[in-house]
């Protein structure tokens, strides 16, 4: 029997080298920093997949993370909501703050954290339940007290899926097309009313039309959410993001406003990557 490796909260990923107590992390963050890392690394066993990254993700903006395959984009993204806790052998070093809270510090409850940070995965992964119950799932387990039906409708509208599914909310989500499923997953994440939305190559399994849908969506979402988008698609990063971070071999090579990264980047490696001279 084939057994896939499953997420196992083996033990929480804890920061290894804590800053000495006498020297607490530089306090007040700039108003706009929603997520911030400082010399932040993630190791799989002894291999640093994210290496000493210092990055600020401003609130209400779309930040794209680009870079060649295996450079640590997903690892960094999953570090923000501590999904790497489920990966055996993963551990974090350095600092990562969410709204000024030390995510890998002793006072952070990862369950609480994940309720405020939504995640959309590369492959659409709706639950094998009805469309309605997919969207209602997170609010339900998080004890949402308001009108669930209204919330589901609002989330589906925001995800630009409402018109296509409003007559079949009780049908299985698995009967939707891939693009619809991905928008459903976005609706499911929005319904939790997070303030940060992490998206790991959300369009990689989609055709150009569905991709365009989702890009429009991201454009609208940034009025309400902070979006972090991992993408392999340069045009996509250029179209939808405000800021772009380029990673290479686990390191953050450069981060700046998207138009600067795409027109006159500082680092020649960024230039090479964007113009497709290496991959």
């Amino acid at each position: 029997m084939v057994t896939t490796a499953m997420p196992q909260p083996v033990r929480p990923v804890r920061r290894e080298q804590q800053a000495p107590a006498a020297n607490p992390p530089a306090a007040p963050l700039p108003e706009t920093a929603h997520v911030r890392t400082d010399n932040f690394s993630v190791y799989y066993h002894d291999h640093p997949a994210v290496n000493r990254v210092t990055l600020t993700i401003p609130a209400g903006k779309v930040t794209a993370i680009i870079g060649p395959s295996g450079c640590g984009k997903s690892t960094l993204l999953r570090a923000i909501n501590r999904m790497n806790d489920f990966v055996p052998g993963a551990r974090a070093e350095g600092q990562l703050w969410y709204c000024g809270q030390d995510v890998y510090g002793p006072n952070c409850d990862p369950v609480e954290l994940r309720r405020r940070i939504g995640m959309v995965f590369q492959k659409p992964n709706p639950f094998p339940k009805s469309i309605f119950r997919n969207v209602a799932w997170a609010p339900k387990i998080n004890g949402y007290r308001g009108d669930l039906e209204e919330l589901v409708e609002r989330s589906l509208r925001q995800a630009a899926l409402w018109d296509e599914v409003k007559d079949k909310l009780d049908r299985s989500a698995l009967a939707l097309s891939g693009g619809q499923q991905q928008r459903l997953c976005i609706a499911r994440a929005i319904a939790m009313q997070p303030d940060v939305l992490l998206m790991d190559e959300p369009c990689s399994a989609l055709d150009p039309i569905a991709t365009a849908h989702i890009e429009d969506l991201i454009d609208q979402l940034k009025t309400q959410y902070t979006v972090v988008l991992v993408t392999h698609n340069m045009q996509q990063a250029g179209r939808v993001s405000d800021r772009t971070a380029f990673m290479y071999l686990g390191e953050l090579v450069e981060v700046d406003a998207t138009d600067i990264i795409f027109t006159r980047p500082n680092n020649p490696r960024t230039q090479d990557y964007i113009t497709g001279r290496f991959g």
Partner: protein
Amino acid sequence: MRRERLFRNLLRLAAWLVGLNVLVISITLFWGASPTLRHFGLGFLWSSHWNPVTDEFGALPFLAGTLATSFLALALSLPLSLSMAILLGEFLRVGWLSNVFKSLVDLIAAVPSVIFGYWGLMVLVPLVREAEMWLMPLGQSVGIEIMPYGVGVLTASLVLAVMIIPNTAAIAREVLELVPRDLKEAAYSFGATRYEVVRSVIVPYARSGIFAGILLSLGRALGETMAVTMVIGNTNEMPANLFAPANTMASVIANELAEATTAIHYSSLVAVGLVLFLVTTVINFIGTYIIKKMTVQA
């Protein structure tokens, strides 16, 4: 080309032999049971009198005994086997402790049923007798007669409960392990706790497989003969309560077939076998139907 055809024909032959086998068993049962069926008709099923001396035969006490012990055993074992499956399929998937538990479950499946019967006699019967002594006055005060025999429906159910653990535990564990990783990750990413993920993602996803495991357990309990015969008390009467001795369909056949002197007695035992065969078949059909429905919904 010719070898290909030969191979296919051999496979086909084997399939036919297996199918034929079932047919032959059914015919043998009908054949052997026909004197009883002709004599008692369907009343054989409703009658609760089984008396080889007066040649009165009814299968109801044994039908009741089989269903009572099997379902009670299932109820007793499910909390254990499902907990085991969830533990090994989700919480404790690797490591030496996990391997120890898995081997122990497999070991239960490998123990011959006569050993379970022996264990029941030596360990459970005295314990149940103690409990019955203790409960006797209580039973009297509410009008339930409890005799401290130690053997009976409850004891048989307890033995069965242990015996059927591996069927559910092993299958349920395997299907739980197959729940896709990305579904669990999605659930965790919404701030679900371990318990919430198990309850509302993992178990629902695996439920048709879990149900299949439960069905296997039930099938084993319905047909189990040796262990049950040794601890059920072998009384051909409707059990008055859980503490009363009784017989199941399988145990009465095992008990009396060798000693059946009259043709009608022999035939009635075969008829009991036929009923047992039908009951297991019907339960299997219902189960398969439910599994199908569950799978379609998922």
